[in-house]
């Protein structure tokens, strides 16, 4: 028996999302993803003073505001040629890490785990414990996580003035220099967050998690104390529900590289991980194209973002979303923490993905491993600050210039492409992480990463918002406001 379901609104994702499912014999056969809201940021930016982008782009998204600021500042820095002093590099990385790690925390405790406290799981052996820890607005660990997040974001209060929507991130560095005594206080804040993660999330030192080098090692660690810490409880229920069979990715992941260092390298290397080859390939940003065939946007030709166009066309035949379909060398790629962990060679995630691919289980695992890996880096960056050395270099933007700003948001690869003519922004194009993950079909009819990941998802009799679909959707940690912008 076949049927069609329109599922939405999804919550515990950022922004509004609708998914259309074709179902036969209790399985999804086809999915179409609709990003339902359009605001038109690229059109807002055209004609403005270039630095106005620093005010406007963070407001694309309240959950990845710093990432948008970093991409814009880098695009303008690329156009002007300014170099950022090491202190500026470190403080901007600290702000980015503050946001990214907070997003991983929110995703796990507020967005993803509450679904396991749903009545459909009432008979599972872990249900009572999952409910106690993660139930929406009630779970003890979820509540503790909100409190830990609030304290952690005080790092943004000091470095960025406020979160979201700081203006301290500038093309030439940070507008907020850090004094020696402030550094001590910031280190204390980092240690406080570390204590939360080590006590509640992992029940183990972060270094122990980051050092797990295979699934066998992970299983030994899990078995040693199966209920201690929330990662172990997740592993318990993931195994029971076989989350590794849900939401298979396209087999290619993209990372632009995270936390660029003063020497130009990345703390988490860039790269395209190709599952069938089992290795990393270099990122060729020249091979990015955005295809608007199935978007309510004008234009039939797939264009590079430096030449991109965004113009609403509501009655476009074949359109079913506001999102364009980005492709890399014509192919669908997935982006996110899993892409960063694969590109940077984290052995546990490489081992898990080699066995079962990118899926609901490995995506969540990669985020938690990233929390454990990056927090110690923030301690190093704080220690590396040289108070009284500059945090900012002044620059002068030529009247005509082009720039590209690449970074990694919590949800993956983010790029801004800007063209400045006669001292004004002529064109501004943004390709956000969820634009990749939740893209519609392209001109060849190839579905986007989520659309393909939903194929085969089980639908139980009587389900109108299938719970497996909810797990798959949320495993990507989608941000719909960024997707369309």
């Amino acid at each position, binding site marked *: 028996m076949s049927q069609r379901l329109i599922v939405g609104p999804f*919550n515990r994702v950022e*922004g509004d999302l609708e998914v259309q499912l074709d179902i036969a014999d209790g399985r999804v056969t086809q999915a179409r993803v609709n990003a339902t809201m359009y*605001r038109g940021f690229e059109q807002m930016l055209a004609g403005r003073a270039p630095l106005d982008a620093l005010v406007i782009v963070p407001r694309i998204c309240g959950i990845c505001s710093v990432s948008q600021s970093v991409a814009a500042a880098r695009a303008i820095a690329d156009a002007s040629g300014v170099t950022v002093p090491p202190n500026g590099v470190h403080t901007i990385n600290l702000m980015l890490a503050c946001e990214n790690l907070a997003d991983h925390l929110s995703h796990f405790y507020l967005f993803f785990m509450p679904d396991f406290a749903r009545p459909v799981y009432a008979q599972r052996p872990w249900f009572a414990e999952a409910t106690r820890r993660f139930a929406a607005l009630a779970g003890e660990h979820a509540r503790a996580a909100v409190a830990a997040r609030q304290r952690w974001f005080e790092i943004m209060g000091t470095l960025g003035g406020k979160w979201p*929507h700081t*203006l301290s991130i500038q093309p030439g560095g940070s507008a907020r220099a850090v004094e020696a005594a402030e550094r001590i206080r910031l280190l204390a804040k980092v240690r406080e967050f570390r204590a939360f993660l080590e006590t509640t999330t992992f029940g183990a030192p972060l270094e122990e998690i980051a050092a797990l080098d295979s699934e066998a090692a992970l299983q030994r660690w899990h078995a040693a104390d199966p209920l201690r810490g929330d990662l172990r409880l997740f592993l318990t229920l993931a195994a029971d529900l076989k989350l590794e069979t849900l939401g298979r990715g396209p087999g290619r992941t993209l990372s632009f590289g995270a936390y660029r260092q003063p020497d130009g390298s990345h703390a988490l290397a860039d790269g395209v991980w190709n599952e069938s080859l089992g290795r990393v390939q270099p990122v060729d940003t020249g091979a990015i194209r955005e295809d608007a065939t199935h978007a309510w946007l004008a234009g039939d030709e797939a264009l590079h973002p430096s030449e991109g166009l965004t113009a609403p066309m509501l009655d476009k035949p074949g359109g079913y979303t506001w999102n364009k379909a980005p492709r890399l060398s014509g192919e669908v790629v997935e982006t996110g923490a899993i892409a960063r962990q694969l590109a940077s060679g984290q052995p546990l995630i490489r081992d898990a993905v080699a066995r079962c691919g990118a899926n609901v289980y490995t995506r969540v695992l990669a985020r938690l491993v990233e929390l454990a890996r990056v927090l110690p880096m923030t301690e190093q960056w704080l220690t590396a600050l040289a108070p009284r050395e500059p945090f900012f270099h002044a620059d002068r933007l030529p009247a005509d210039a082009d720039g590209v700003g690449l970074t990694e948001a919590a949800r993956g690869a983010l790029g801004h492409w800007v063209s400045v003519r006669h001292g004004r922004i002529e064109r501004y194009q943004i390709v956000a992480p969820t634009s990749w993950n939740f893209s519609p079909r392209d001109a060849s009819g190839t579905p986007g990463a989520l659309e393909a990941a939903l194929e085969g998802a089980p639908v139980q009799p009587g389900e109108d*918002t299938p719970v497996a679909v909810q797990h798959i959707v949320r495993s990507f940690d989608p941000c719909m406001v960024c997707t369309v912008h």
Partner: protein
Amino acid sequence: MNVLWLQSGGCGGCSMSLLCADTADFPAMLKSGGIDLLWHPSLSLASGRELVALLEDCRDGRTRLDVLCIEGSLLRGPNGTGRFHVLAGTGVPMIDWVSALAAVATHVVAVGSCAAWGGITATGPNITDACGLQYDGDRPGGLLGADFVARGGLPVINVAGCPTHPGWVVDTLMALAAKLFVADDLDPLNRPRFYADQLVHHGCTRNEYYEFKASAEKPSDLGCMMENMGCKGTQAHADCNTRLWNGEGSCTRGGYACISCTEPGFQDPGHAFHQTPKLAGIPIGLPTDMPKAWFVALASLSKSATPKRVKSNATADHVVVAPAVRKTRLK
């Protein structure tokens, strides 16, 4: 008090900001304040059909709706159809959901400058025809109209800010729950006066530089940002420098200008955000309540009296000249 929170043409940043409220237990704080979240996009379990059923129950009076919180602008375009945001799973434009729910709510709260005035989404060409609930920029009107009064007797309460401060939202909701919020608590733009009767300039750590017109010249300089860097703190209504953000933050403490994000139309200042527009060398936007002649006279006097310490530090990113240590007792 039942609170329903919906998002439309915004970035979700006011919700993210809300979660930074200064409390050791966020759900407990709401509960003890008498606030019962019927649904919130980031916090609630209900998804898909469960949520649509809840919205229908509120609209049709089966569930009491005490406060409707709207975050994000209302997208009226294209051509008044509202199709730039059709609420997922319903086929109904969000503006229609909001109008129907506002009609039955006891109070309607615009969370953030998007929902209050249109905000950033309405900038430039405003191709989505974005507006606020009861304002279109600084003109009364918006989606619900200038004459709208919610069932409880108040117009839309504009908790403006981009994002809005978590304390502004929590204080407003708690006052409503305690029935301690009356018409007189609103300023002329219907913002809660507890924060809108202040200026960002109050409590700014750069006030000594302001007094002497010792000005910052580039980002990271310590001096006052009014003369060159576009700071509107002397005109912007908000308590950002006394009720701080994320612990010890504020825009000016973070090293950058106040862009007056609580004011209607802040998104289109008519000049580049980071530069102060001037006429004959004098900033066009003068401090609220200050006649121009006085400002000019005071500025030239104070500039001539600027201590070397203040002048040197104004264009440095850290204190290069510390206050002198006197050998005698302070008098």
